[in-house]
C-alpha cells in the first residue's frame, strides 16, 4: 500500500524566483526506507517539509500538485493533523528545542503530551528512547546544556518517541560519532521492520547504500532517479549531480569489479568484499 504519494509537486518559496521543487512525482510504500540524496540546495529539506505540511502551510509561497500522506491531502489539512501521522527531525539540532522545558526528559515528553499519550506509557516510551540513543546520563540536563551530538540524539529521540507512522529525518546524523550514526540507522531499520515508513535526507552514502530500500536523487528540485542504491550509485554521471558514490563503489569502479552476475557495482562493505574476493580467485 502506498503510504506517501507525491504527484507533480511544484513549490516556490515566497520572494524566491526559482522553483525549489519542480514537478516531483514518486510514491513510497508502507514500511519502506527511502534515502534522499543530492547536492546542497537540491531541495532535500524542502521536500521533507512538504510532506509534513510545513510547505506550504508554514512558509506560504506558490504551490502546485498534490501530496498525499496516508491518504490525507497535505494542502487541505493542517500541520497539526499531519503531525499525528508524520514526524520530522530537522537538519540543525540546535534550533529544534522547544524552549519551554527544563530537562531533556521533559523535552522528550513535550510531543507525547501534545498527542495525548497516557502518562504511564509516556514514561515507558521516554525511558526506551533515552536508552536507545544513549542519553540516559544527561536526562536531567537542561536541553541547551548538551554537546552537539547529544542534542541531535535528543531531537531524534523526541520524534521517535511519538511513534508516528511516517518519519522524516533531515541529515539526522551529521553531528554523531560513527557509533552513534550506526545506532541511529539500526534503530531506523528496526522501525522499518515494524512497518514504519521512513524518508531520510543524508550525505553519508555508505550508510544510505547499506540501509535504504530506494534512493531518491534530486537536482535543482527535480527527481533525477528513484531506484535501488545499486542502480543509483552505479550511474557514471553522479558527479554531474554533486554526489559521490560510497567508498566501496568507488574502489570497485576503479578496479572495474561489478557485482557477480549483475550490471551494477557493489555498494556496501559486504558486497565489495565478496566481489573483490571473487576477482582474486
Amino acid at each position, binding site marked *: 500500500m502506498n503510504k506517501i504519494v507525491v504527484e507533480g509537486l511544484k513549490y516556490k518559496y515566497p520572494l524566491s524566483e526559482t522553483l525549489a521543487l519542480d514537478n516531483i512525482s514518486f510514491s513510497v510504500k508502507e514500511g519502506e526506507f527511502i534515502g534522499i540524496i*543530492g*547536492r*546542497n*540546495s537540491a531541495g532535500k529539506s524542502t521536500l521533507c517539509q512538504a510532506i509534513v505540511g510545513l510547505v506550504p502551510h508554514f512558509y506560504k509561497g506558490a504551490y502546485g500538485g498534490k501530496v498525499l500522506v496516508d491518504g490525507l491531502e497535505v494542502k487541505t489539512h493542517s500541520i497539526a493533523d499531519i503531525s499525528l501521522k508524520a514526524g520530522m527531525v530537522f*537538519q*540543525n539540532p*540546535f*534550533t529544534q528545542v522547544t524552549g519551554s522545558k527544563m530537562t531533556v526528559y521533559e523535552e522528550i515528553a513535550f510531543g507525547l503530551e501534545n498527542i495525548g499519550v497516557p502518562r504511564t506509557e509516556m514514561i515507558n516510551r521516554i525511558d526506551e528512547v533515552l536508552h536507545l540513543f544513549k542519553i540516559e546520563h*544527561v536526562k536531567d540536563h537542561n536541553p541547551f*546544556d*548538551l*554537546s*552537539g*551530538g*547529544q542534542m*541531535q*540524539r535528543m531531537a531524534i529521540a523526541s520524534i521517535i518517541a511519538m511513534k508516528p507512522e511516517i518519519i522524516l529525518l533531515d*541529515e539526522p546524523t*551529521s*553531528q*554523531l*560519532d*560513527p*557509533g*552513534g*550514526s*550506526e545506532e541511529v540507522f539500526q534503530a531506523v531499520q528496526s522501525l522499518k521492520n515494524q512497518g514504519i515508513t521512513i524518508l531520510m535526507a543524508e*550525505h553519508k552514502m*555508505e550508510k544510505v547504500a547499506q540501509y535504504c530500500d530506494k534512493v531518491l536523487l534530486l537536482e535543482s528540485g527535480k527527481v533525477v532517479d528513484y531506484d535501488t542504491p545499486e542502480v543509483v550509485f552505479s550511474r557514471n554521471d553522479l558527479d554531474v549531480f*554533486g*554526489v*559521490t558514490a*560510497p*567508498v*566501496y563503489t*568507488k*574502489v570497485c569502479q*576503479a*578496479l572495474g569489479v561489478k557485482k557477480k552476475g549483475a550490471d551494477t557495482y557493489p555498494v556496501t*562493505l559486504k558486497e*565489495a*568484499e565478496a566481489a*573483490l*574476493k571473487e576477482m*582474486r580467485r
Partner: protein
Amino acid sequence: MIKVKNLSFSYKQNPQVLSDIQLEFDQRSTAIIGQNGAGKTTFVKLLKGLLKPNAGQIVVKGQVIKEQTAAELSRTIGLVFQNPNDQIFKRSVLEEVMFGPLNIKMEKSEAKEKAIEALRLVGLEHQLDINPHDLSLSEKKLLCIASVIAMDTDIIIFDEPTIAQDSNGKEKIRRIIRTLKEKGKLVMTIIHDMDFVAENFERTIVFNQGRVLADGPTREVFSQKQELLRAKVEPPYITQLADKLGIPGTILTIDEFIAKYHSVK
C-alpha cells in the same frame, strides 16, 4: 605551538568534563575524534580562552593564556564554532567576515580585501550583501570558516566543519585545510568523518570521557582497533574494506588501496 599541562574542567558543579589532559601540538595537521560528549568542543573552547580551566595550564606560543584576554588571544588562534548560529551576528556576509580583521586593527581596505579573498575560498564571494541568516546551514558553516580564515591566525581550529556539506563542500574544506597547512599554520579539526580524517590529517587524537585515549600519526591510531571501539569511533570505510580482504598494514585512502590490492594479488 601549544602546550597543555594537567588540564581539568567542569561546567559549574557538574561532573568533570576533562580530566588531567596533557598534550603538545606542533605544526602537524591534527584531527580530534571521539564519542559525542567526550569533551572535544569543551577542550578547544579552553584553548581559545572562552572557558577558563579549573586546573592546569595552557601555553600558546610561549605565552600562558591565562594572562591574556580572549580578544588578545584571537590574533593567534581562530576557532570555527560547531553551531554556526552561535558565531554569526552581523547583518551582511561581508560585514561578518570583516569583523575579525577590523578588530585586530587592520585597515578597512585591507580588511575588505582579506574578507573577499576568504569568501572566494569558500565560494560565497557573490553573496556579500546577503543577510547571513538567509543562508542555508551548509553556507552558514562556510561563512564561519571564511570569517576565521580572514584573520590569518597561526593556529586555526575547526569544530566539525563538514556538517551539512555535500561532496563539493567537503572538497572545498579539504583544499582550505591543505592551503593553510602549506602556509605553515597549525590546523586542528574536530570531526566525525573518519575517511576525511584518514585522507587529510597527519596526526589524530582520540578523546574518550574527558581523557586522551590515543594519540599519534593517523595511520598508527587507526590501527589500534580496540581503542577505537572503546571510543565509539571506527576505522575509515576504506580501512575496513582492506582489513576484510586481508591487505596487510593500515590502508588510509582509495589510491593506497588500489596500489596494494594489485600487489597483494
